[in-house]
């Protein structure tokens, strides 16, 4: 038992907890818990009404059981009952239970909200705080709906207690994060901003979190906070260490508030007002100065708090990126930390310097620390610190130090932790490519990479080296020689065999003059690896062999011998067998001219964003590598253009800077681009001729250039799966989204792998769409990313706030489902639909899927009820010809009255009875809500059952809306 048991000390609870602790086994614990659950259940169900104290105690026991990791399926009602108790502790336990075990049961939510409402209006500050804490803890949409309009009032009311204001501010923040559409600050904005001036430091500390979040979303409305924040910061920074009493923490004045103020300022550009800016620069200088002062305490809390402010100030300096003096001072300060005895500080200095490296003002200053950082990479005992050092080396790399940095990273790779090898490999590959002056160095580096960490070299990396070798004829001979030498090693990685097979197949002739690497020696070397390799590599090697027959006629007999043997020509793998059969046939019947044409050297690849970079970006999340990239573009623009040397790599880089929408999904784009520029049309027909002679064998892709390329593509490319996945997005309005015009929920897409469900709700001009991605397989989807884009001018018509919630990790386990929420705002009327793009890896193959999201203009309808008289009056008012759109069309679906009514209601308009003199006809009215305006719409649908035809007429106050609605609806009936 604890020495101190404060408060009421529910003894029954303490005994129960002791019992659990004394259980010798998991089984005993479960037994004890089940006994307790049975007891509580019978108490709750018993005839005797329980007093508040017992109810509290049992609810608390249930909570304890839940926190042990067991499921609790009852007691919610009793907890809710406790909320309306007038005893504080009972209420408090009730709220705690609700906060921890939120239940979306709508009946309960209503009761909970009622209790909260009562407490909020009780004017008892402790009760109000409890209620606000509960809202902040649960933060559900239902609560936002009930309280989002009430809380701002409490926050700014003059007579609200400080503690209640603090809770109200953070409560509102939580609601804003869950339901930004429901929290409207409007008239309160200026009073909320002025909370920064509040006398009570606690109120400022709480309010600033809210203000920061609101400023990020509405910077213009909140921009007055900048000068208030600067003056508040200035007062704190210049205060003596004891001025702020209990807000001073280990001799540091208000560290949390200082950090939050500096964070708020990072939502804005540097202040335009000279005086404000001067004052801020002064603050930043004072903070940097203080770092040099002797510590006021030896306690780590003192230095942590002080340095927390310092690092936040440095973030702000980097964010502004306009004060060279401050940037260099920041860099020097971080340089000192690089050698600090505190591991934490070394870690943070490495991390922070990474962003400094991307500023043109401090890049050079960062580079002076290269030796220290390399040393950190070699000697730090903590892998997370070494990882930061590797990141920093990557960020500080440029042409002047690339060779040194790449060499260090390569040697680190030999002993690097498995967890970070793949990323390291990608980084080395990118740096080697980006800063290669001579391509022999590049080739050496990549081959070393494969030698040292072959398992971690992803396809993208070795595709890229081949792409570059093919495109640069000055390096082809060197590449052939080097890869030939690398293959001599008794045990070499399969990736090396792939690169070797490809390069020797293309450029083996460049080294064939040397008797030590004569054609037969080359072939024997490659073939000695054949039996140890996987099927895809063997297939690649077979293609290399047929290329050899073309390059070196003297190897023809040997190779034909190999192709002819049973293990090839009767191989159980159909791909290998087909290649063996076809290559054998091709080599025996085609003339040398035909062979030479078919097996011509690969044409150069189109330059595009390095697929490795795309991969690293994906790995680290967007934005993670974009900063150094942009910056490199800047630097390269200066150095390279000036130097007159501009390799294809830099061209590719600048392409990526311009964010070319290259479909990096299909790797290097080898398939799409190469055959077009490679094979003249005659080559194609020639091939067919060859095969028509050869008999019924299908003109397999395995023999044209395409077939060779296929080695470099994910298996699904050939399996037909991806073509199935590629829903054409250019059709005017694809079927799946058409189904959603009159309904909001359902399955948007489904194939063998993936099911996408959709639930959406619209209110006024706002919408929220829940997307559910279900993995139908038993294998996990990796690198699962989704992006929503608005094509063309749709961008300015719809505003989607993407990823309101995001999956914790980009992996969808087999059988699992993840959810994504999109918030949509309709700015003005529109006719295109936003596109949803989904990418993921399934068993190593990249899947790419584009769908139209079923967001249509009618979703923003508000129904309008009106009488027959009003209807026809407005109908007449909308009589300009362009305001009307009409279509006569054949019925595609049932003309049943109930079905039609359901559709028209699903459309979002009001279906008006007794308006049209002809009872067979349907008339509807509604208003489309966009941000800027409201568009009134009237609709009339006249069915002709005999002819199975409809006439649809729309009249709207905006022409484009009439047209669009008419188009949409004509497909629905």
């Amino acid at each position, binding site marked *: *038992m*604890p*020495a*101190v*048991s404060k*408060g009421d000390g529910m*003894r*029954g609870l*303490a*005994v129960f*907890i002791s019992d659990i602790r004394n259980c010798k086994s998991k089984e005993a614990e479960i037994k004890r818990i089940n006994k307790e659950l049975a007891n509580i259940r019978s108490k709750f169900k018993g005839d005797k009404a329980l*007093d508040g*104290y*017992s109810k509290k105690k049992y609810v608390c026991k249930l909570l304890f059981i839940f*926190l042990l*990791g067991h499921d609790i399926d009852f007691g919610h009602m009793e907890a809710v009952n406790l909320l309306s108790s007038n*005893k*504080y*502790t009972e209420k*408090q336990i009730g709220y*705690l239970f609700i906060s*921890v075990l939120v239940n979306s049961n709508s009946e309960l939510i209503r009761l909970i909200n009622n209790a909260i409402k009562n407490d909020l209006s009780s004017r008892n500050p*402790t009760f109000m705080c409890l209620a*606000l*804490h509960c809202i*902040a*803890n649960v933060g559900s949409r239902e609560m936002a709906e009930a309280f989002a309009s009430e809380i701002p009032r409490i926050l700014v009311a003059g007579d609200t207690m400080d*503690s209640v204001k603090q809770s109200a501010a953070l*409560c509102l*923040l939580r609601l804003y*994060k869950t339901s930004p559409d429901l929290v409207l600050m409007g008239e309160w904005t200026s009073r909320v901003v002025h909370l920064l001036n509040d006398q009570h430091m*606690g109120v400022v500390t*709480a309010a600033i*979190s809210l203000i*920061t979040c609101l400023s*990020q979303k509405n910077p213009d409305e909140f921009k007055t906070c900048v000068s208030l924040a600067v003056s508040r910061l200035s007062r704190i920074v210049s205060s003596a260490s004891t001025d702020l009493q*209990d*807000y001073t*923490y280990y001799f540091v004045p208000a*560290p*949390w508030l200082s*950090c*939050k103020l500096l*964070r708020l300022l990072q939502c804005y550009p540097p202040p335009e007002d000279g005086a404000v800016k001067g004052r801020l620069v002064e603050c930043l200088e004072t903070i940097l100065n203080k770092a040099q002062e002797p510590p006021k305490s030896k306690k780590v*809390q003192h230095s*942590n*708090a002080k*340095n*927390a402010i310092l690092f*936040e100030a440095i973030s702000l300096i980097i964010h502004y990126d306009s004060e060279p003096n401050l940037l260099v001072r920041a860099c020097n300060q971080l340089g000192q930390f690089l050698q600090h005895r505190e591991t*934490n500080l070394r*870690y943070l200095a490495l991390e922070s310097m990474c962003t400094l490296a991307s500023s043109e003002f401090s890049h050079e200053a960062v580079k002076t620390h290269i030796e220290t950082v390399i040393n950190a990479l070699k000697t730090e*005992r*903590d892998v*997370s*610190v070494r990882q930061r050092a590797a990141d920093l080396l990557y960020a500080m790399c440029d042409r002047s130090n690339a060779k040194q940095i790449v060499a260090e990273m390569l040697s680190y790779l030999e002993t690097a932790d498995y967890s970070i090898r793949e990323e390291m490999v990608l980084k080395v590959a990118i740096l080697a490519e980006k800063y290669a002056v001579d391509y022999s160095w590049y080739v050496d580096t990549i081959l070393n990479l494969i030698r040292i960490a072959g398992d971690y070299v992803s396809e993208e990396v070795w595709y890229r080296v081949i792409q570059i070798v093919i495109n640069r004829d000055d390096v082809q001979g060197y590449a052939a020689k080097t890869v030939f030498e690398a293959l001599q090693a008794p045990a070499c990685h399969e990736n090396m065999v792939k690169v070797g097979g490809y390069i020797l197949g293309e450029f083996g002739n460049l080294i064939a003059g040397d008797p030590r690497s004569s054609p037969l020696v080359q072939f024997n070397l490659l073939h000695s690896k054949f039996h140890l390799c996987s099927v895809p590599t063997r297939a690649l090697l077979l293609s290399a062999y047929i290329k050899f027959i073309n390059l070196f006629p003297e190897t023809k007999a040997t190779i034909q011998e190999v192709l002819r043997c049973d293990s090839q020509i009767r191989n159980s793998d159909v791909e290998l067998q087909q290649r063996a059969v076809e290559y054998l046939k091709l080599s025996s019947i085609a003339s040398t001219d035909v062979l030479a044409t078919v097996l011509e050297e690969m044409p150069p690849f189109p330059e595009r964003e390095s697929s490795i970079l795309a991969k690293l970006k994906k790995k680290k*999340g967007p934005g993670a590598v974009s900063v150094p990239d942009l910056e490199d573009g800047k630097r390269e623009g200066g150095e390279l253009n000036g130097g007159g040397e501009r390799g294809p790599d830099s061209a590719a880089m600048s392409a990526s800077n311009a964010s070319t929408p290259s479909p990096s999904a299909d790797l290097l784009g080898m398939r799409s681009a190469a055959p077009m520029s490679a094979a003249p049309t005659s080559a194609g027909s020639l091939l067919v001729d060859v095969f028509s002679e050869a008999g019924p064998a299908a003109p397999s892709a395995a023999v044209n250039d395409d077939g060779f390329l296929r080695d470099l593509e994910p298996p699904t490319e050939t399996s037909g799966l991806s073509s199935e996945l590629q829903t054409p997005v250019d059709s005017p309005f694809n079927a799946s989204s058409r189904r959603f015009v009159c309904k909001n929920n359902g399955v948007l897409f489904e194939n063998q792998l993936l099911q996408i469900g959709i639930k959406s709700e619209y209110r006024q001009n706002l919408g929220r769409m829940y997307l559910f991605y279900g993995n139908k397989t038993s294998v996990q989807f990796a690198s699962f990313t989704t992006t929503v884009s608005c094509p063309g001018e749709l961008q300015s018509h719809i505003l989607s706030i993407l990823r309101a*919630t995001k999956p*914790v*990790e980009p992996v969808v386990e087999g059988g699992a489902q993840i959810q994504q929420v999109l918030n949509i705002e309709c700015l003005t009327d529109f006719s295109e639909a936003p596109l949803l793009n989904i990418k993921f890896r399934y068993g190593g193959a990249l899947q790419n899927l584009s769908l139209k999201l079923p967001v249509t203009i009618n979703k923003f309808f508000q129904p309008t009820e009106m009488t027959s008289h009003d209807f026809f009056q407005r109908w007449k008012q909308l009589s300009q010809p362009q305001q009307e759109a009409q279509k006569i069309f054949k019925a595609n679906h049932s003309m049943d009255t109930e079905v039609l009514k359901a559709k028209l209601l699903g459309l979002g308009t009001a279906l008006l009875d007794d308006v049209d003199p002809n009872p067979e006809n349907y008339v509807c009215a509604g208003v489309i809500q966009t941000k800027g305006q409201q568009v009134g719409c009237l609709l009339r649908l006249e069915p002709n059952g005999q002819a199975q035809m409809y006439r649809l007429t729309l009249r709207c106050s905006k022409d484009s809306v009439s047209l669009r609605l008419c188009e949409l609806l004509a497909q629905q009936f």
Partner: protein
Amino acid sequence: MYMQSIHLMQFMLLFSRQGKLRLQKWYVPLSDKERKKISRDLVQTILARKPKMCSFLEWRDLKIVYKRYASLYFCCAVEDQDNELITLEIIHRYVELLDKYFGSVCELDIIFNFEKAYFILDEFLLGGEAQETSKKNVLKAIEQADLLQEEAEAPRSVLEEIGLT
């Protein structure tokens, strides 16, 4: 243009050296299953780290800040952009609050009075953001609540006194 809003904190976990969770507070909506998985994985990751190692680590999309006090680990998950050192001091301030309230707090205090540990946390951090950083003010709020509770205490039955119900 909407940006991802900044959460100061995604969740806070307290667990013992044996890996038993003592307190968990989640500031982002996650299912029970996800919570259990995250806690299990993270506890294992942290327990595997040696003393003297850095208090920060990247874990999935999150930044983890943790510190061990006697037999208990305090661990917070924050977002990539957040300030690690100030988070470390949030942990320390919470420990100070528990210490002051219980008087040399130990793991047992938190086990037996878990509800108090939650109440103190709610006074200090709300929705993952610092609500009140003054130690005095937080403790004052809690003590006032305790006072309310003693006034309201009803007489208990004999059975309850000996802990049999």
